[in-house]
């Protein structure tokens, strides 16, 4: 069937819109800003680093702002998806692939060969790109820059400038605007500035704080319970202890309450840094996520496997951190293992008791996960020494997780592949935090996307623009509410719907999951007949 009317390589440009003069100027500014980075990477001796850094960041910001203004403010408010599947960048065209390759290479260099970016070793001064960022790092934390500082700065900048672009694109939609303002705020304050100030505190001998993004919860920040992190927090007085307690409370108290009331969106699309990048810089790629049933199956296996892995890994890390003697510290290895086991059993039993029906066929997979973790606990108990578990070093388990999940999955694939697989690859297939929040959202949350009676025309805009690959239309055309563990509540399905069918809502738990064979609008007797 010939349906390839799009992604034209012909000279007759189907968009019929070439870039305006203003847009070309804006792009020139942005490219000049990036060019300064390139100069720095090639170790050009830039005379005044601070000035060049300010110019490059400034030019990139200015370029994006001018471009966005011209692209959106010149047109009436409304949905701005014209030509998305004709543009090379947003339809896996040449530009898309080039961007993907550049991003992926950047992540590989960043994680595995940071010296290419100019990271110094043995106390020598930084060179290259990293040296360009020294002035800003010294201003904030007093230390020279690291590859992570460069990455953090660029990451934050991307969220801020593309967040601005997103807010203009959706300037008719207050939900989208507030949500974007929120992620911009949390990224700038919590992920970027506060950790830098914390590291300034470390100049005092009383503090030895690890890098800690307060909004980033375990198991997303899988390193929270690493010995260096715990030692650092514990040796930083009451502030450190407070932060550790805050970390634990946010996992077990704050997060369940907020997820119950608002769904996982309170985190995934209002607070989280990964979500923030996906929703801003990644917005142009949301339509590339796969909506196939097979992708959904893969998603459920992968994300829950990562969750099980991260639970076992973290348990192992804490286990080896703890001692055996209860007189030294109340929490010993065996008490800890027992309490993990009891906690998980409790969760498992309660779910099976009260939510068996909602889980349906998935109950079996939940049970698999549960038994694997419990078995791992037993093995840990019988094979565990102070640094070994499962007969291997606990730290190697941790490094494996850090390498394969923390770096390759979340960074190289998760972000590098934005232009190929869509902007939520990590959030959808890998993030263990999303798995936990999703589990809560599916079973204990007031959140759902309501469909509006019989108004759906099955057009498919909602499914196409769902970054999590949910086939929203499949529910909407049956008049069925969307209650899916993966939904991050970005609200775009509701925004792009041309017929006002979808609404994100927090309501009562009863009738949250509904299913209608006959849609509203038909014969009332017929609807009743089908229901009975």
């Amino acid at each position: 069937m010939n349906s390839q009317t799009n992604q034209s390589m012909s000279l007759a440009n189907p968009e019929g819109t070439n870039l305006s003069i203003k847009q070309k100027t804006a792009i020139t500014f942005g490219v000049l800003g990036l060019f300064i980075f390139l100069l720095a990477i090639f170790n050009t001796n830039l005379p005044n680093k601070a000035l060049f850094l300010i110019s490059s960041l400034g030019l990139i910001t200015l370029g994006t702002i001018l471009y966005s203004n011209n692209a959106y403010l010149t047109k009436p408010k409304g949905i701005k998806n014209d030509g998305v599947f004709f543009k090379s960048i947003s339809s896996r065209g040449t530009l898309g692939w080039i961007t993907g390759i550049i991003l992926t290479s950047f992540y590989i260099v960043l994680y595995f060969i940071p010296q290419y970016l100019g990271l110094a070793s043995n106390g020598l001064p930084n060179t290259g790109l990293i040296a360009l960022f020294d002035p800003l790092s010294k201003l904030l934390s007093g230390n020279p820059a690291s590859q992570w500082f460069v990455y953090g700065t660029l990451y934050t900048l991307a969220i801020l400038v593309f967040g601005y672009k997103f807010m203009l694109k959706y300037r008719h939609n207050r939900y989208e605007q507030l949500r974007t303002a929120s992620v911009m705020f949390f990224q700038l304050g919590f992920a970027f500035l506060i950790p830098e100030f914390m590291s300034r505190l470390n100049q005092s001998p009383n503090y030895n704080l690890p890098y800690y993004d307060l909004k980033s919860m375990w198991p997303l920040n899988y390193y929270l319970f690493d010995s260096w992190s715990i030692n650092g927090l514990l040796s930083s007085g009451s502030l450190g202890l407070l932060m550790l307690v805050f970390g634990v409370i946010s996992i077990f108290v704050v997060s369940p309450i907020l997820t119950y009331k608002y769904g996982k969106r309170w985190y995934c699309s209002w607070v989280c840094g990964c979500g923030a990048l996906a929703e801003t810089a990644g917005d142009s790629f949301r339509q590339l996520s796969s909506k196939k049933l097979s992708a959904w199956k893969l998603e459920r296996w992968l994300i829950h496997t990562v969750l099980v892995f991260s639970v076992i890994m973290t348990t192992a890390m804490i286990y080896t951190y703890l001692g055996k003697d209860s007189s030294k510290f109340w929490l010993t290895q065996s008490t800890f293992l027992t309490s993990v086991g009891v906690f998980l059993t409790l969760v498992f039993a309660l779910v099976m008791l009260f939510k068996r029906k909602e889980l349906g066929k998935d109950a079996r997979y939940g049970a698999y996960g549960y038994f694997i973790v419990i078995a791992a606990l037993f093995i840990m108990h019988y094979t565990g020494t102070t640094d070994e578990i499962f007969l291997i070093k606990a730290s190697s388990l941790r490094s494996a997780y850090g390498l394969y999940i923390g770096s390759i999955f979340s960074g190289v694939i998760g972000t590098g592949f934005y232009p190929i697989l869509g902007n939520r690859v990590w959030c959808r297939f890998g993030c263990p935090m999303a798995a936990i929040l999703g589990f809560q959202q599916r079973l204990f949350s007031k959140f759902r996307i309501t469909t509006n009676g019989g108004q759906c025309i099955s057009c498919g805009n909602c499914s196409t623009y769902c970054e999590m690959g949910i086939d929203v239309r499949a529910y909407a055309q049956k008049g069925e509410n969307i209650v899916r563990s993966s939904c991050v509540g970005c609200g775009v399905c509701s925004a792009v719907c041309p017929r006002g069918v979808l609404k994100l809502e927090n309501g009562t738990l009863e009738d949250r999951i509904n299913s209608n064979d006959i849609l509203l609008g038909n014969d009332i007797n017929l609807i009743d007949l089908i229901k009975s």
Partner: protein
Amino acid sequence: MRQKLKLNYFMEHIVIIGNGIAGVTAARHIRKLSNKPISIISSETDYFFSRTALMYVYMGHMKFEHTQPYENWFWEKNNLALVNGFVKTIDTNTKTLYFKDGQSLSYDKLIIATGSKPNKYGWPGQDLKGVMGMYHKQDLEQLETYAPNNLVCKRAVIVGGGLIGIELAEMLNSRNIPVTFLVRESSFWNGVLPNAESEMINRHIKNHHIDLRLSSNLKEIISDKNGQVKSIIIEETGEEIPCNVVGLTAGVSPNINFIKSSNIETNKGVLVNKYLETNIPDVYAIGDCAEQRKAIGLRRPVEAVWYTGRMMGETLAQTICGHKTPYNPGHWFNSAKFFDIEYQTYGWVFAKPKENHAHFHWKHKDDTKCITIEYHTISNEFIGINNFGIRMRHEVFNTWLNEKRTMDYVINHLSDANFDPEFYKHYEQDILKAYSNQLQIQTIS
């Protein structure tokens, strides 16, 4: 493409002509209720797609495959045989369909769901190259050929101010192709919309730089030497407008030419009774192509609307599977989008209020949001609402219509029906105030 059907010879073979929303809904519901073998015939596309979404393919919001609500494996998995073919004639005596390519297919029960075709009123030049409707997938392909961009198509003229016309204007506008929009009426769609709404849409159309010509009819389409459109002439003024594409969107009518030679009785559409049965036993018609012998309530005998097609499909499936059910749709509802303004309607709002009815109209000062409510002036009963730029809940209005709520009740409870996204500004207080003011004015005068 012919798919093998797991035939069970003890069961009757259901054949559906047309793979649109009506036919496919019928097939899905028959499958839910039974194991009867089902064949769905179409010459338009292999797989079901959402016709209303074709515009988004041209605009680049989606690819064509995104308009297909079911993945391709769905049909075989549910034992629904898809037949690509064009039915030329129906022999109801031998219960056989004859295809254009000479093949044939026999049926036990036949469902005609062939939808509509664009109206052509015999304009000179209406069959020239570059003249097209906007209904079938083939129309989209035509448009892609003749209007790929504003270099090939320097101007397009749209004839007919209805829902498809304005969608076509939006489509062409998305590729920066200048559009002249000829509307026969004195204001856009004012046969359906009350004046204030219709005029708001006029202004919105013009804000999108569409050359809107009201009270203008097409006289003729002029050909160039290659048989392609060169220009059109307006009846009223005699003005000639050079253009490369002409979109004919002056409504649609049932697509039933191939039935005319059979024994099945037709008028504008295939005539059916309230059970959607034609005059021939075991032959049914649903969707756009069906014409009710007796109109249901205030509805028109032929209703070319997505929702009614779906409802007829749902209903007929019951009858076919042994629960004989009349087609008895509930309260009228519909929706559309005019460029950036969404429109929904629940119950009846007429262009001019019916006898003993009145309209209450409220419009926001930004000129993109308004509502009109029709109500009974004596009983104060709520009759229907048109809402533009504000989303409303179908379920709530359906309940209010069932309960025959009064206008006062509805206006005081409007916030219960609001379906706008969270954090949107609400206008219920404004609306209530406007309503109270209007009442005061009425009492004084």
